[in-house]
Structures are given as C-alpha cells and as structure tokens.
C-alpha cells in the first residue's frame, strides 16, 4: 500500500535547483535507500518529506493527505527525522535526548508508556549504558545512535535517516541496517535512508533511488539498479560487481579513479 506519494516536486535554494521534478511512490514495510553523489539532492529530498522544507512545485502526500495541510505537530507523530549533520545543541543527557522524540505525543508529562518506549529505543540502539551521560561526551558514532533512537522513539510511520551510518563502526552499521529493516517489517512503516555505502545499501534496502543532479535517475530493486552503467553515470566511476549468491559486492576499479583525479 502506498504510504508516501511524491508528485513532481521541485525545490531550489535561491538559484540552485536541488530537486527537479521528482516523482516517487513509496510503500509501507520497506527500507528504501537513496544514493547519489554529493550534492545530488538526497538531504533536500529527505527534508522535503519531513516538512522541514516546503516544496516549490508539486506536492507530497502522506496516506493521501497533502503534507502541507498536516499541522506540524501532527506531522511530527508521523514522520521522524535524523539529520545528517548534528547542529549546535544544548547539552542534554542521552535519556533526555531520546525522550525528545516523545514530545509530539506528550500532553503534560511523559507516561510510563512513553518512558518504556524510550528505554526500548535505547536498547535497540545499544546506548543504555550511556543513559545519563551528556551527549557531548559521546563519540560521533555513539551520538548518532542516540539521534536515531530519538527518531525511533517518535514511533513514526515514516522514518527518514540522512546518512545514519556515516560515523558508525562496521558492527553498528550492520546492526543499524538490520535493526531498521526489522522495524520496517515489524511495525509496517517506511524507512527512507540516504546512504553512501553501496554494498550495505544493496544488502539491506528493499529498493533504491539513485539521484543525479536533482533528478531521479533510477529506482528499483538493488539488483536491477546497481549495475556498472548506472554507477558510472551517477558517480562517474568504473566499478566491478562481484556476485556472491544473493549479495553483490561493488568494488571501484582503480584506474578510473586515478584518471579522474588527474583531470
């Protein structure tokens, strides 16, 4: 069933067109990866979906309702967001930070259920041991796990993650991908994730969207989308693709990189 429908949206920052006529239809229970070169519009697409940016043309609908007509607070119970770059934040303990995710659901103070949801999200992200430590005293990857836990605590129908794996160690990268995929199945929600690691993306995502200069260049199952030609077009590099049963392994071919650099 279609949860999010993106119809011909465009967005520009002043003169820079970041998204050009993007149309997508995203379904429940899926983990969808967004890949593309730096500046291809991944973050912008995610922000348009979270209501952080208002699209200039076209519209986004969530379960048939236009995003722009949903009150922001209601929207926050439906869509969770993990930013790519952590902005300046006031010091706060890990627990309190994850508890922020419950704010859109709160009336006067958090109920026992709210607190349990927070504890559950913290367990999933394996951050219980830091519970009362200040987030600024954690490593980059640990912080990132806190922010993901916060978005999980929101219990959204759409979970948007902007490069959540970028500073995680390999174990937590895999753990996160598996965790997010499991959540999409369990709770029948949609997870939308900008990723750079093509191997990880191909292994865990149900479908992939390749963005190129603000256009949707390709979309579909990882196996269909990730071929030499597409990668060459989207990223400008030559790769070799090795298949190991269900998994594929994408390796850059050395010469072309050297060639690119000498341009």
């Amino acid at each position, binding site marked *: 069933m279609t949860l999010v429908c993106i119809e011909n949206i465009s967005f520009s920052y002043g003169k820079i067109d970041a998204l050009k006529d993007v149309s997508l239809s995203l379904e429940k229970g899926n983990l969808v990866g967004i890949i593309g070169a730096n500046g291809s519009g991944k973050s912008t697409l995610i*922000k348009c979906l*979270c*209501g*952080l940016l208002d699209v200039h043309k076209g519209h986004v609908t969530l379960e048939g309702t236009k995003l722009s007509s949903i*009150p*922001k*607070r*209601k*929207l*926050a*119970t439906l*869509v*969770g*967001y993990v*930013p790519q770059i*952590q*902005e*300046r*934040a*006031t*010091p*706060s*303990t890990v*627990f*309190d*930070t994850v*508890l*922020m*995710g419950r*704010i*859109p659901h*709160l009336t006067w*103070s958090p109920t026992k259920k709210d*607190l*349990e949801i927070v*504890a*559950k999200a*913290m*367990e999933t992200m394996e951050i*219980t041991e830091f*519970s*009362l430590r200040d987030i*600024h005293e954690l490593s980059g990857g640990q912080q990132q796990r806190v*922010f993901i836990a*916060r978005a999980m605590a*929101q219990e959204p129908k759409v979970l948007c993650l902007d490069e959540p794996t970028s500073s995680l160690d390999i174990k937590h990268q895999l753990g996160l991908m598996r965790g997010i995929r499991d959540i999409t199945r369990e709770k029948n929600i949609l997870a939308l994730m900008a990723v750079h690691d093509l191997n990880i993306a191909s292994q865990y995502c149900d479908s992939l969207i390749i963005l190129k200069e603000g256009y949707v260049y390709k979309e579909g199952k990882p196996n269909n989308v990730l071929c030499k030609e597409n990668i060459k077009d989207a990223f400008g590099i030559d790769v070799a693709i090795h298949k190991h049963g269900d998994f594929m392994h994408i390796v850059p071919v050395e010469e072309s990189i050297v060639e690119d650099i000498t341009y």
Partner: protein
Amino acid sequence: MNRFITAFKKRSVKSTKRTSGDNILTEYDIYNAKKITFIALSSVLVLLMAMFALTQGSYSLSLKEVFLAVIGQSNDIAHTRVVWNIRMVRIISAIFAGVGLAISGMIMQNILRNPLASPSTLGVSNAASFGAAFAIVAFGSGRISSHGGSAVTFTIPYIIAISAFSFSMISTGVIILLTRYRDASPETLVLAGVAMGSLFTAGVTSLRYFAQDEVQLSAIIFWTFGDLGRTGWTTAGMIAVASVICATYFFFNRWKYNAMNGGENVARSLGINTERVRITGLIVASMITALIVSFVGIIGFVGLVVPHMARKVIGNDTRFLIPASCVVGALLLLVSDTVARTLISPIVLPVGILTSFLGAPMFIYLILKGRNNW
C-alpha cells in the same frame, strides 16, 4: 534437550534485557528525584534566608520580635512598621525580582542555545533602564518619597514600565533579527547586545542633562545600579505577580524549550514552530526584565549567573531547570541584598553593585570556556 537450552537461553537473554530497560528507568527516576530534592531544599533555604533577612538592618530585632510582628501580634507599632513596610517589601522584591531575572536569562540561554545570553548581556536591561529614565524626564513620572532615606517611588509606575518595555523591545528586536542569520554565533549575538547596552547606557547618562530638577537627576542615577530599597507594596506586588505569571507561562511551554535544546532542525522536525517559540519567549523574557528594571533599576548578571548555577545541578531539562532557576534566582538576590544591606551598615549598598562584582568574572569565565562547554 538442545531446544530446551536454547529456549532457556532466549528467556534469560530476554529477562536481562528487561531488567536493563527497567534499570535505566529506575536510574532516570532517581536522577529526576535528585533534581526535585534540590529544588525543594533550595526553596526551604529561601524561606530561612527570608526570615534571617527580616531580623537584619539598622533597627535590630530578634527573631521572636520579627515573628510577632509578622503575624501582627507585636505590641510595638514600630516593629510592625519596620518589618512590614520596609523589610518585608524589600524581601518580596528581592525574591521575585530574582525569580524574574533568572527565569528570563534561563529562557534566553535555552531558546538561543547561547550560554552567554541574558537580559544584561543582550542589552535588554540597559534599554529598559533608558526607557524608564526617559519616561521620568519626558513625563515627570518619578518622585522621591521621603520614607527610607534614599527610596524613590513612582507616581505613575505604569508609564515608566511601559516606556521601559518599549525600549527593551529595540534590543530584543535586534537580537531576533540577528538570529535569523543561521550562522550568527553566540559571541556575535552577545557582542551586538553589548554594543546596544553601551549605547543605551550613554543614553541614560545624557538624559541627566535634561533632568529638570535634582529629584529627577537622582532618580536617573539610581537606575544605573539597581537598588531594591525603591519598591513599595504596589511595585513589589507587580513584580511578584508578573514574575509568577511569566514563570508559569514558561513552565507550560517547557516541552517546546526541551525540543529547542536539540537544535533548530531537530526541534522543527519535532513539530515545534521554532521561530514563534523564540520570538514569544524573548518578548515575554524582555517584558519581565523591563518591568523589574523599571522598578528597581539594573541588577546585572543575575540572569546570566543563576541559570548556570542551576544547570550545574539540574542539567538542561527545562521541566526542572525552570523551577530551579526561579528558586536559585530568589535565593541569590535575597542573599546579595541582605549582604548589601548589612556589609557596611548603616550604609546600604545598591545590590546591583554586588551582583556585578559576582557576575562579571563569571561572564569572562564563560567566554573562556567556549560555546560548547556550558
């Protein structure tokens, strides 16, 4: 058998997981209980301090005499006068001016995510004092009354307060405009505030030349260093009511401020209209600052120092930080004022001098610490 073992293992894994979840919840409860204890203990301290302050002053009274006078059972009418008309008014003013200044500083720091923000560092207090002095010169709304030596009371306090608020909105407006530039750093904001502060101080100084008589002149001079001896029951009452209303307003919005702690985009993704929360928060904070400044003058740095003191114990969870700042603010100003009254008795120092001595080093310390270490 194997299956049994796996099942057992699974269960034990589950049960440890559960206890770990329960653990962090208990841990969190204890953590919050500590904060509540701190707030409760500080409140008791405020009461004790207030009782002590009632006994202090040039007219010496014992605790028992004070108690009798407070409950109206004293045989000596002079005791009742001293306790009620002079000391009690002053103590009420100290407590609620402390609440108001501390809470506005705390809110400014949290919504701007700027540890250096406060009514005095953002130029709001100075603007308000200019507004108050301006009202005196322009409308002649200030008069010195004869009771209590240097006390100034106001014939039309509302005009002074309104004028103070109007001018404080100039500083607030500039700060709001600056926050629209995403990359305005905490230091930039404070530098702008300091610039506006000195501009308005210069304004106050030049107003002296327009003063029509000595009464106005001394009234203006008094503004530069706040003094709690100027309040009467009306003004003290107004400060109290306004502080309580503002603190309540902030407390009702505590989850919004908590979301703001997470950063601009995070707060917005949590459904907060950050622009609106920032503007309304700054306006309410300026309002209470302007009201206090217009009745007692500039009491600098309370709004800067107190929230940091409270934060050391409480952290940034505004559910607890708001009441804690109120209580610590009340305590700090009450203690400072009592010291100011008794240090070189019978001379009464303006409490603003004392808080500045306390606050200026703290301000420098905060700058040295840098923006990420609150």
